[in-house]
């Protein structure tokens, strides 16, 4: 058995150490251990504060998904104050905040997702897939001759457009703090809506060129990538983008990406039950009984000398099971991913449906991320050059959106069009005396769960379960996904390229999870340029 340590894993948010044992005979990963090694203790920092003060503080749990923790916290406090009520087993929401505020939040968070997904596909994971090789294809429409050009003229400006869009609604970003309990105070004006559309339009032009190239490349390697990084088959989605534009208005809003849970081998989602969420700290550097229901859980007590512990990350479980969260979980639970699979199969019968790997895989995670990106931004690309497995599908990006019943202009522009210009975007809020609230949201990387208990108008207890914690923590989906991954023996970091695909397919964000990374070189140390 050879031990390989990757530390720190670069081009992810935060600090992660990955340690794998490689079976010398099969040359495959036999077991894996992921360590998060930064602890900041946010839940202790917000105690005894005004409940409204949690959001601007907890926003800084993560500077990459910089708007998501903020909103999850605002929503938890609004739920405590009775301004958001969940109904039908958490499938719908009734809210007393104005429709404009619901839409403004969707727009800000949509931009946050779009930038994050694009950055992951092109900058963070892109290099693993030799994105550089795609330059000739990208150069057809964009003048780039080197990866530096691509960064400078395409990728950096694209993500900046999305940040500028957020700044139009939240003042500045990262860490816009535009949402407060009660709404998003800035009333929408015609000029801000027009400017917002301009930012989306600029981003869309880039996406229309890049998306088919990246999609065709990914799907040409689909068979290989779908056998890598097999997940648990358990998926959780907390739901994102509430829709106030149905006939029920803000009285009964569905989530456009619905909340629900799929536990293997079932592929039928069931409603989310927050009481089923627990955290297990048996392999984590904390003294606390395990597992503990998150609702009512106490602030952690650090202890690095605890026997058997190796990470600052705790393991969230749903109904006792380790679950995957993220784009794949969302589009799978929503059914839209399967719908895309059926559409493709209708054109090329030889192609199996989606997901290619029912338990999740590197391919499925990357494809799901790309699908969400196009759904949010929309497309003007009518060139029927999309492929699967290198075979022409004969459809364009616009055709795909039509097949899926999504607006061609994208969800974000649709939300802008649904706003009531000049109408209120804030309703008066008051701190409740004693109450509890749950904030459910989805960050680009997966499910966010915030829970607050208020006593005498102050925060008495607060718990956060962040996306990457589900994926990366001890005995979680990433560790399992690494098992069986082939490892080469050339002595270079190419040996670990498949492992890199697996690690990065989860689009990890370690600040959320709690950590930083360390490496303890054992039998053999490989410093890998992951």
């Amino acid at each position, binding site marked *: 058995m050879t031990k390989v340590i990757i530390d720190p894993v670069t*081009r992810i948010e935060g600090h992660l150490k990955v340690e794998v044992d490689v079976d010398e005979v099969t040359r495959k990963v036999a077991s894996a251990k992921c360590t998060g090694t930064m*602890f900041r203790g946010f839940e202790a920092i917000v105690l005894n504060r005004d409940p409204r003060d949690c959001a601007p503080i907890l926003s800084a749990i993560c500077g990459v998904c910089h708007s998501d923790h903020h909103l999850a916290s605002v929503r938890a406090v609004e739920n405590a104050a009775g301004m958001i009520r969940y109904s039908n087993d958490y499938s719908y929401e009734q809210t007393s905040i104005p429709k404009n505020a619901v839409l403004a939040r969707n727009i800000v968070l949509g931009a946050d997702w779009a930038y994050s997904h694009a950055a992951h596909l092109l900058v963070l994971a892109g290099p693993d897939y030799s994105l550089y090789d795609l330059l000739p294809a990208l150069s057809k429409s964009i003048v780039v001759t080197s990866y530096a050009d691509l960064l*400078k003229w395409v990728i950096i400006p694209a993500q*900046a457009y999305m940040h500028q869009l957020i700044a*139009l609604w939240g003042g500045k970003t990262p860490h816009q703090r535009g949402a407060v309990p009660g*709404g998003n105070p800035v009333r929408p004006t015609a000029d801000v809506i027009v400017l917002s559309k301009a930012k989306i339009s600029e981003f869309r032009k880039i996406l229309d060129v890049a998306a088919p190239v990246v999609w065709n490349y990914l799907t040409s390697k689909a068979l290989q990538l779908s056998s890598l990084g097999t997940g648990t088959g358990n998926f959780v989605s907390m739901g994102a983008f509430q829709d106030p534009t149905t006939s029920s208005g803000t009285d009964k809003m569905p989530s456009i990406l619905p909340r629900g849970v799929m536990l293997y081998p079932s592929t039928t989602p069931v409603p989310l039950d927050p009481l089923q969420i627990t955290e297990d700290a048996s392999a984590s550097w904390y003294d606390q009984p395990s597992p503990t229901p998150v609702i009512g859980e106490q602030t952690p007590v650090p202890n690095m000398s605890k026997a058997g512990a190796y990470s600052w990350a705790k393991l969230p479980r749903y109904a006792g099971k380790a679950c995957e969260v993220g784009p794949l979980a969302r589009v799978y639970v929503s059914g839209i991913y399967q719908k895309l699979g059926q559409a493709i199969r209708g054109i090329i019968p030889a192609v199996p449906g989606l997901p290619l790997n029912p338990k999740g895989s590197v391919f499925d995670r990357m494809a799901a991320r790309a699908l969400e990106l196009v759904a949010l931004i929309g497309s003007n690309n009518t060139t029927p050059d999309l492929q699967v497995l290198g075979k022409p599908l004969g459809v364009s990006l616009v055709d795909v959106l039509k097949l899926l019943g999504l607006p061609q202009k994208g969800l974000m522009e649709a939300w802008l069009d649904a706003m009531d210009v000049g109408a209120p975007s804030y309703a008066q809020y008051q701190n409740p005396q004693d109450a509890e609230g749950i904030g459910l949201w989805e960050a680009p990387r997966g499910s966010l769960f915030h829970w607050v208990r208020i006593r005498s108008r102050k925060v008495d207890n607060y718990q956060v379960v962040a996306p990457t914690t589900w994926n990366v923590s001890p005995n979680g989906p990433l560790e399992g996904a690494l098992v069986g991954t082939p490892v080469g023996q050339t002595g270079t970091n190419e040996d670990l390229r498949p492992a890199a695909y697996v690690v990065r397919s989860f689009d990890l964000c370690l600040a959320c999870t709690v950590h930083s990374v360390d490496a303890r070189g054992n039998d053999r140390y490989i410093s890998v340029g992951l």
Partner: protein
Amino acid sequence: MGVSTVVSFYAADIHEVLAQLAKTNGGKVHLIWLPMAGDTGCTISMLQASSPNLIGAVEDLQVSADFWQALMTPDYDLGWVSAGYTAEDRSQVPLMNAAFGNAPVDVLVVEGTPQIGTPPGGSPGDYCTIGDYNGRPVNAYEFLQKLAAKASYVVAVGQCSAFGGIPAAKGNLTQAVPVTTALKTAGIGTKNPVINLAGCPAQPDWTLVTLASVLQGFTPELDELGRPKAFFSHIVHDGCPRRGTYGKGQFAQSFDDAVGCYWRLGCKGPITQSSCSVTKWNAGIGFCTQAGPMCWGCMHPNFPDPPTSPFFTQVELVPAYLGLSVDTIAGAAAVGVAVGIGAHAVHHVLAKKKERTEASKGESQ
């Protein structure tokens, strides 16, 4: 002034400085971006720099960012290739060489808060570790000590490293402290004063200008808190779109009020020094009181503790300096201009830290 202006303005100087560095350091200015207890928001903020963008600035400034964990892409040389590192090295090797070996460190940028506390069963600083040296995990606090002692310039980018920020707020369990406090505790001196770029996150254009400045070999003029005066002498409130209503004593009662200053609702613009309302953010799109509920005081040294919080509570001290309550000011709105000027003076009193009573008397007359 955008960084491109600085770069072109000082082009000759930069060339000269770089030429000197080329003799001593092998041609590049070496920068280490050390991630401590933070959220990578300042790195993401750097990607929002607008004139030029980050990649353009790296080219212009001839900087070699030997270690910048979040941005280390194998296909783009942010400095590693020219620094002699190979693809296999692009994990911890440049950081280890800088901290424990002979690799030069010209500029140390710190993002995130140093944590000097000792977790039960661990060593001081073990709440955050990065990589491994000779079989031993190394914590971020140790990296800070090694690298700060070696670097010509230490730049604390963002509220966390400059003033402790959110990880160091009341209730924290990890003894999180500002870079200056951590270095003092460890008995480490620096070659030049630590430059504190406050903000959650740091404003990227200001950061690039500051880095351009130190890369040329000089420290920008700093205030008593170690902040470049160029970016921390204004009062946010003074550039607020609602500033005029404040002067008239009009105060919003609800966030939905179209007219009126948000001071009563908790806006911290009146007590926060920064150029947010001058340079704005995200390519000049806006700042917090322009398209958001209010200023949260994220550049105030005490953020997120009092007086910046409770965030939704008005800062009581401000009118007290003038001997006026908010109600007095509002009630005196008819008197108008004089009161407006008086109220305005408050902020300059706070900013300049003059003798309070004297200033209020003098400026409100």
